[in-house]
């Protein structure tokens, strides 16, 4: 039974597109890629969030610093504005510019006239853009009046008590903050790189640790596959995978013990089977010897007696007068009985020991047997086929082999005649260089071979099939029975060829 593995399930899944895009990764790659991806995603989120926070913080700090600087400048400028000292105001802006990297700074009065400016070109000019002039209408407190990604512009009123003398305007570039932000981003990139590299190295080490034990387990499984159960799997990890290795070692140990036990039992069984087969062969040999002796006795003694009796009856008939018709008829009847008895004795003797087999070989004996069966059972169509290469025809096989083939032929044909209700029976003997195949096929009613040959039907199986099998097995061959109810039966016996010359020399 094929157990569907994950790949099979995957292929049969509802998402064929996924199958097309599937990438085969080994465990190490999966682990490393997973760690890299997790580090990348988390660190990217962290860096992005940190950058956003830092951006907000830095820009707010820059704005706050600008407001503070503008307020301080406004406080200091009050003295100069009170004194109406534009030179003092310009000196103040120049000095404050050293402390703060302002893009520009200027002091304007309430009419929008520039009293002091970091760029002397604008001294005495008037503010012309409405955006800046709107500052004059704003509440008298420091505030950010313009803010973009590049420039933070703040205004701080120059006041004395409740009186407003003018405004200090300060434009602070965000470049330093953005530069700092870029450095933070680069730092974040380096940290992310470091995290990815460290994570990948850690994942690689972890994968090596895990895979080392897995590799050892895999080698152990390979050894298990090859029935090499003597070497235990080295346990190098004291974790779940190590426990798997230990469990596998225990299983291998149990398997080894079971295997050894099984081998012992099989050995004993094989020995017992060998003994049984030896005894069976001895029994068959004894039986064949006995059949041979009986066949010889029947043929030589009873057959001679019957022949002598037959001759006596012929003599007696010839001695009877011509008018003793009744006696002569009786003699004739007895002569017929004697002839029939002689035929029966020869047939029985041949059954016990086919003299043709001994003298003429398997093919002749087999054909004679089939012919005899055909004579005795004319309602069944018999055929005998021999497929023997020309060069093999004169080479006799070992007597034991010929006998086994003949007996199997006898048993198979007899069974078919008796039980199969066959219309035709075909016996084929095919001989090749190395083996010989005997096949008996009929078109009878057939039988459930599995049921017949099961353990529960040993008696039904009869001695016939078992005997045929034993005869085949005793000579290193095998028997193949194929049948089903209504489908006839085919019995095939295959033997390795042993020539008579080899048997004699052996």
């Amino acid at each position: 039974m094929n157990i569907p593995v994950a790949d099979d399930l995957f292929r049969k899944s509802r998402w064929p597109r996924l199958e097309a895009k599937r990438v085969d990764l080994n465990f190490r790659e999966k682990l490393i890629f997973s760690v890299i991806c997790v580090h990348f995603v988390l660190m990217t989120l962290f860096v992005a969030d940190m950058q956003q926070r830092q951006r907000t913080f830095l820009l707010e700090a820059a704005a706050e610093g600008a407001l503070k600087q503008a307020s301080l400048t406004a406080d200091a400028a009050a003295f100069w504005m009170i004194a109406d000292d534009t030179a003092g105001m310009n000196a103040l802006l120049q000095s404050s510019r050293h402390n703060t990297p302002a893009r520009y700074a200027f002091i304007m009065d309430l009419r929008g006239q520039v009293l002091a400016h970091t760029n002397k070109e604008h001294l005495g000019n008037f503010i012309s853009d409405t955006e800046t002039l709107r500052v004059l209408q704003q509440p008298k407190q420091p505030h950010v009046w313009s803010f973009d990604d590049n420039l933070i512009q703040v205004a701080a009123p120059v006041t004395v008590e409740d009186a407003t003398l003018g405004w200090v305007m300060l434009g602070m570039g965000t470049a330093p903050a953005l530069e700092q932000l870029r450095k933070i981003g680069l730092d974040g990139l380096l940290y992310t790189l470091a995290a990815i590299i460290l994570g990948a190295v850690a994942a690689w080490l972890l994968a090596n640790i895990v895979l080392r034990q897995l590799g050892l387990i895999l080698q152990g499984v390979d050894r298990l596959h090859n029935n090499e159960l003597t070497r235990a799997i080295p346990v190098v990890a004291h974790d779940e995978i190590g426990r798997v290795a230990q469990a596998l070692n225990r299983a291998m140990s149990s398997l080894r013990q079971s295997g050894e036990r099984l081998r012992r039992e099989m050995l004993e069984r094989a020995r017992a089977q060998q003994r049984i087969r030896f005894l069976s062969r001895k029994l068959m040999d004894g039986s064949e010897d006995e059949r041979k002796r009986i066949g010889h006795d029947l043929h030589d003694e009873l057959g001679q007696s019957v022949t002598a009796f037959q001759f006596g009856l012929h003599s007696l008939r010839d001695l009877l007068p011509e008018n003793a018709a009744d006696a002569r008829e009786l003699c004739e009847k007895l002569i017929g009985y004697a002839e029939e008895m002689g035929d029966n004795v020869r047939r029985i003797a041949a059954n016990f020991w086919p003299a043709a087999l001994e003298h003429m070989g398997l093919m002749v004996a087999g054909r004679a047997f089939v012919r005899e069966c055909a004579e005795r059972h004319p309602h069944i169509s018999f055929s005998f086929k021999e497929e023997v290469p020309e060069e093999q025809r004169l080479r006799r096989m070992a007597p034991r082999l010929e006998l086994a083939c003949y007996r199997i032929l006898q048993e198979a044909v007899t069974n078919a005649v008796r039980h199969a209700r066959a219309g035709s029976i075909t016996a084929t003997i095919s001989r090749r260089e190395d083996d010989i195949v005997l096949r008996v096929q009929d078109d009878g009613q057939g039988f459930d071979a599995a049921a017949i040959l099961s353990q529960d039907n040993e008696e039904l199986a009869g001695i016939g099939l078992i005997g045929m099998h034993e005869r085949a097995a005793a000579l290193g061959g095998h028997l193949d029975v194929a049948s089903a109810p209504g489908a006839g039966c085919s019995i095939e016996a295959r033997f390795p060829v042993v020539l008579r010359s080899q048997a004699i020399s052996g």
Partner: protein
Amino acid sequence: MHRITFVVKQVHGPAGPCLGPGEPQPRRSLGRLLRVLLPLLALLALIACSPEGRESENLPSYRKTPAIPRGAPVYRMALPPLANVKRVYASHLPLVESINARVTGFSVRLVVPQNYTDLARRLQAGEFSLALVDPAQTTESLRYGYRVAASTGDGDSSRGLIILRNDSDIRAIRDLEGRPLSFPAAGSFTSTLLPKSFLHEWSVDLSACPMRYVGSAASALMSVYFGKTEAAGIGLMQWQQFTSEHPDISSSLKIGWVTEPFIADALIIHDGMPRGHARQVTEALLSLHEIAEGRDALQRIGLPRFTAASNDEYRPAAEFIRRNAAVFSHDPQPPLREGIP
């Protein structure tokens, strides 16, 4: 059809070990790793390196003429830096606002120079249309196109004081001889010139006294408080203001001597100011005490009222300075020049 064989065949499992030829062979992971890593790092670099900021287009713009139409003329009114200029400015701001409320066609803006030298220089240059100055500065300014329009009173409050520490060992005025003295400024009339004249009259050899001009009345008093000088010269009004603002410090100080009263401060007007505007300012000042707002403004600077005055009323001041010129010549920078009218 069932087929039964009696031959036991060797049953083979899948050929080969568990890692058979069908299994994926180990691959070179480095290339695959780089293929994944490089795009990730490029993306990360893009995230990390934000674009540089561009030049803002929202900068202020300028032009030569005012966007807000130029209004009525503004005249600057100068005050001497008697104390912290902010405080001087704040205390005199109601006065200017009251003037502006009562004049038409122009306005007055208050200016407090950072020091006496700057005040004198700018008075000499005629930068201020109006000035509220002491008698010495008044007499000096008369030479540069100014004239006296009003006086701050009868001069009773125009007294100089010599301040000592409570624990001072000075018992007699002559004990001050050789001791360091602090003054707000060399040219301050009530704070410097009157006390020096007083000391001279009491036979204190000022040439033996180290003089320290520290910029303001409060600083002169703090010098005494910290023991840097033994005594400080200061005007009566400045002392009163200091004691109200710093009662804890002033409680450690005491008045050693008080000079006789002299001429009060004067409002001087430059000749460059149109006469009509000058008249409006003078009239506004002289009538300030008649309205509540004006009285509040006068009270903030410690004056009861302004009275009408002329250049002639300040000739005694010029005489006083000429008479004590030798005494004042001990100053490193004599505040007044020869030939004061």
